[in-house]
């Protein structure tokens, strides 16, 4: 996957189509499509494995939101950092992490990214510059701001994408972070994934104003609202935000309008919204279907070719699931390791 990421980085340097409905770049559009599909199939598999009792505890699926991370990742380089909440499986795929290590971690096995000790909500990869995987709502925001602080300190030109939910934006530490980031012109893009609900609470019942892109206004932080179900629109907005912050102008806020199809976690009966509401988004705004439609319409690939791609992706995921189930549980001695670094 590093090759893929490097290609993304190269793609990032190409000018972005201004009109999402315009001409697709064949190679890029197929790659984005495949990556979104990889997340979707991984998450479906995770849902099944949870049902079989192979995964325990909390498991938050990303189905429906794929365009956000795939679009954003396509405009950064492998040296840039990413940090997010517990709804993190998609972000890890986007960062180029291996589905095997992700599913093994979900199963609590030694082949997982955290040796089975972190689980669904807590995975990291120093190699891929993915810094978690955080279970406490909002806590990743100052954390990501600190990563950006280190980038600025080292003058390495890297940025940090700091993701949060629409529920998380009401945590006080988010605003403490905004102030510091603006004060010190830190290279951070705050990506608010507005999927309309924080658990069972709709944005209307949690926030006095429900558009979030202007929440940095008091500090002069620019913001934009983006159709987070359109990967090309995400890329376009992401490109602008990333180049702004990389140029040393300070933080940028992107509000991605998106939707999660599944319950908040596996144990959420989701009675706070109707089935029709979910169905409507699935049928009208699905980010994967929308891109597939464009790809076929413009003759970039045929439906059969896309189906082939899906089969390949499914095979990759099945293989990863197989790997996860066959990976042994961590050795009991691992209970005591990783509490301290040897000094």
């Amino acid at each position, binding site marked *: 996957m590093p090759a893929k990421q490097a290609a993304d980085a190269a793609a990032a340097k190409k000018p972005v189509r201004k009109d999402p409905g315009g001409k697709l770049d064949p190679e890029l559009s197929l790659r984005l499509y495949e990556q979104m599909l990889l997340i979707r199939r991984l998450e*479906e598999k995770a*849902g*099944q*494995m*949870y*049902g*079989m*009792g192979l995964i*325990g*505890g*909390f498991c938050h*699926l990303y189905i429906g939101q794929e365009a956000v991370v795939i679009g954003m990742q396509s405009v950064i380089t492998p040296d840039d950092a990413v940090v997010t909440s517990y709804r993190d499986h998609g972000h890890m795929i986007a960062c180029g992490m291996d589905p095997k290590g992700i599913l093994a*971690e979900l199963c*609590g*096995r030694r082949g997982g990214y*955290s040796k*089975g*000790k*972190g*689980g669904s*909500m*807590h995975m990291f990869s120093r190699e891929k510059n993915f810094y978690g995987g*955080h*279970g*406490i*709502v*909002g806590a990743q925001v100052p954390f990501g701001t600190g990563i950006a602080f280190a980038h600025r300190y080292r003058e390495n030109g890297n940025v940090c994408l700091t993701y949060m939910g629409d*529920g*998380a934006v*009401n*945590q*006080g530490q988010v605003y403490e972070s905004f102030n510091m980031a603006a004060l010190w012109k830190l290279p951070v893009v705050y990506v608010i994934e507005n999927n309309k609900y*924080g*658990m*069972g*609470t709709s944005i209307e*019942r*949690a*926030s006095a104003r429900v558009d979030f892109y202007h929440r940095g206004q008091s500090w002069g932080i620019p913001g934009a609202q983006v159709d987070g179900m359109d990967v090309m629109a995400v890329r376009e907005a992401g490109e602008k935000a990333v180049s702004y912050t990389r140029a040393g102008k300070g933080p940028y806020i992107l509000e991605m309008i998106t939707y999660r*199809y*599944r*319950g908040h976690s*596996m*144990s959420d*009966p989701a*009675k*706070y*919204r*109707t*089935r029709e509401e*979910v*169905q409507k988004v*699935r049928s009208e705004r699905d980010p994967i279907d929308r891109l597939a439609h464009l790809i076929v319409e413009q003759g970039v690939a045929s439906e059969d070719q896309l189906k082939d791609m899906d089969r390949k992706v499914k095979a990759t995921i099945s293989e990863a699931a197989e790997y996860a189930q066959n990976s042994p*549980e*961590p050795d*009991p001695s*691992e*209970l*005591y390791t990783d*509490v301290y670094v040897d000094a």
Partner: protein
Amino acid sequence: MPVEILMPALSPTMTEGKLARWLKKEGEKVASGDVLAEIETDKATMELESVNDGVLGKILVPAGGDAVAVNKPIALILEEGEDASAATSPKAQTNGAAKEAAKPAEAPKVEAPAATPAPAPAAPKAAVPQTEPELGETKTMTVREALRDAMAEEMRRDPDVFLMGEEVAQYHGAYKISQGLLEEFGEKRVVDTPITEMGFTGLGVGASVMGLKPIVEFMTFNFAMQAIDQIINSAAKTLYMSGGQIHCPIVFRGPNGAAARVAAQHSQEYSSWYAHIPGLKVVAPYSASDAKGLLKSAIRDPNPVIFLENEILYGHSFPVPTDPDYLVPIGKAKVVRPGSHVTITAFSRMVEYALAAAETLKGEGIEAEVIDLRSLRPFDIETVVASVKKTNRIVSAEEGWQFAGIGSEISALVMEQAFDYLDAPVARVTGVDVPMPYAANLEKLALPHADHIVAAAKSVLYRS
């Protein structure tokens, strides 16, 4: 190839469920995303979605099927044109997501009774008992129901009592503790907050100094760490800093400690953190009757009370007094099993393990006295010392970490007050000194169990 639909696990704690009803009939066509059935879990009714296209070939567990184990086949999905009898060795595949079971119920708006006006300047006299009441007539209920009833009864009794927290109103609590409260008391008194722990905790403290009596629910105590400054610097210290003028009648409650497989950031035990703080009262009940009686006492108490619950215990049933004035005094432990050879202290979920350990020990001729501490501050050292004077040996059991834990304090107190009665050093059974791992095998190793208590009891008796 027919696909077996298996009973899915739909929550971290679910091991079996009820097949409430089938929404598709045998022979009916199904598309991926269609709802096949409704399943009742230990927490909610969930919809079971198909991830396959095909025909519902055969229903293996009919509607009404109760206690269906997770992973048991419940139906077969056939490809179109396929015959159910061909289903010799179906390929197991799990079912898809479970989704909302019904349209959201419109929360009826209930007019709350008018709030009483200005707050009393001095600490009100609370009708809190000092001695253990009789149980009287009882009814069996879960800890979950007992907590709900305690809040409902106190809200009926005192219009200044209100409940606030994430998902407490329309969702009835993330762990379904506040069922029916929004419907009875309305949104003025059952308040859904944004995810802003520091903010709503401080707001609760502010409301309490004006004479309101907030019950602040933390979805779990792990999230109270976001708010701990307001709990300690505002709630616990204001009375002292104001020379006794301003007090905070507030309850902070929610599940504490490890649930199941929710890993390091969601599985911490906070008893000793809060028990350390002068100005707070801290309780951690085990049984439903204590949960109810102590929560009512906590709500009536004019001081800030930390009320530590346990997610695993929510579904456990116990006899609970029907008397709405049944209150359990804060600061009193209870001997839940008498014995003469060794004292075992425990609280919250560890009481279950202590009782199990006592049963095992009995088989070996050892009579253990089990004390449910219930309150951690004020701490009932008298009951513990009286027991040690009888048994001359003591084991302290707690789920939290050992260093500076509740057992450390018990050791010190017993050493100070009953040194001459001890025939062995105090033994402490605690969680292992590491963050909680996610992996099933490691999590088991990280937590104390009945076997550890048995071993500790034998060690203080110098038996092997």
